[in-house]
């Protein structure tokens, strides 16, 4: 009679250990395998954050989204993370898309002045009213991939 109970407890402990191990080592969000929660234009995404940052954060932050916009700049100034900047409002508003360094060659092959379809993890809105030297406003995406 004792044996099944012991076996049950052992299984429970094993299960708990397995669960703890799995959550400790769970992988980062895989952008490639995650379907985009929203698909929108760079202009609409920028406008959402510029109009109501809190609402846009709730809606888009930590989610994989797909964005279509025209390339303002290909920014290879940081070797650790190649970046592409999309036009957000035609002025000082942008979508800044960061790629893994393994994507550098693909980013380099992009041409300025073309439209780009990109999927990435939304990280929020880097803008600050109080800091006068940092007047540009960027919606930030990370772990991006180019959608052909």
């Amino acid at each position, binding site marked *: 009679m004792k044996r099944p109970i012991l076996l049950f407890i052992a299984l429970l402990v094993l299960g708990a250990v397995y669960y703890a191990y799995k*959550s*400790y*080592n*769970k*992988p*980062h*969000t895989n952008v490639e395998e995650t379907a985009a929660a929203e698909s929108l234009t760079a202009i609409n995404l920028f406008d959402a954050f510029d109009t109501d*940052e809190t609402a846009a*954060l*709730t809606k888009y*932050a*930590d989610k994989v989204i797909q964005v279509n916009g025209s390339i303002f700049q290909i*920014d290879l*100034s*940081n070797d*650790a*993370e190649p*970046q592409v*900047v999309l036009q957000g409002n035609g002025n000082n508003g942008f979508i*800044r898309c*960061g790629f893994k360094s393994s994507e550098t060659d693909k980013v380099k092959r992009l041409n300025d002045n073309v439209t780009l379809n990109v999927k990435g993890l939304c*990280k*929020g*809105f*880097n*803008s*600050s009213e*109080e*800091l*006068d*030297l*940092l007047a*540009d406003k*960027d919606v*930030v995406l*990370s772990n991006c991939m180019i959608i052909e």
Partner: protein
Amino acid sequence: MKKITILIVALLAVGLVAFTNHSGGIYKTNTGNINFYSHTSVEDITADNHKVKTAFDASSGKLQFSVLIKDFEFPKALMQEHFNENYMSSTKYPKSTFSGTIENMEAINLAQNGTYTSPVSGNLTMKDVTKEVSTIATFTVTDGVVNAKASFNVNPEDYNIDIPKVVSKKISREIKVSIDADYMHTH
């Protein structure tokens, strides 16, 4: 007589242009790096952000940073989740900013390649708490691009970051924040 006046005006103009070129202007980047590192005997934790927005004014020495908390990448997804949800409440407090001064700006010759140091101090804001921090920064000028490196320690408890007892031994009370940014001249 007229010729001399014209000559003086011309010389003044040239001097003024040369002066503004060398000492004025805003230097900026959107791709600066911030790393933080927490060391304890139990665990080392490190995270990186490569999209740091920062600029300085070469005439006044005014220096500013703005960085998104959610954009710090940790080696482990679970750590990143705990950092954002439990410690930093990054949806409620999405940014950290710094506003301060390069105190010895006049000692940095942006027109001449070389390495310069200066004390930097100012206000660091995280989770709606603002505290003064200061450090010594190293500026390396290479053909007009200015690389700045600096580091300082932050105690999470100073910024309303509660660390539960269970993980207390895993998180340092002296988290090292390191900055590495390449500034370009803008205007």
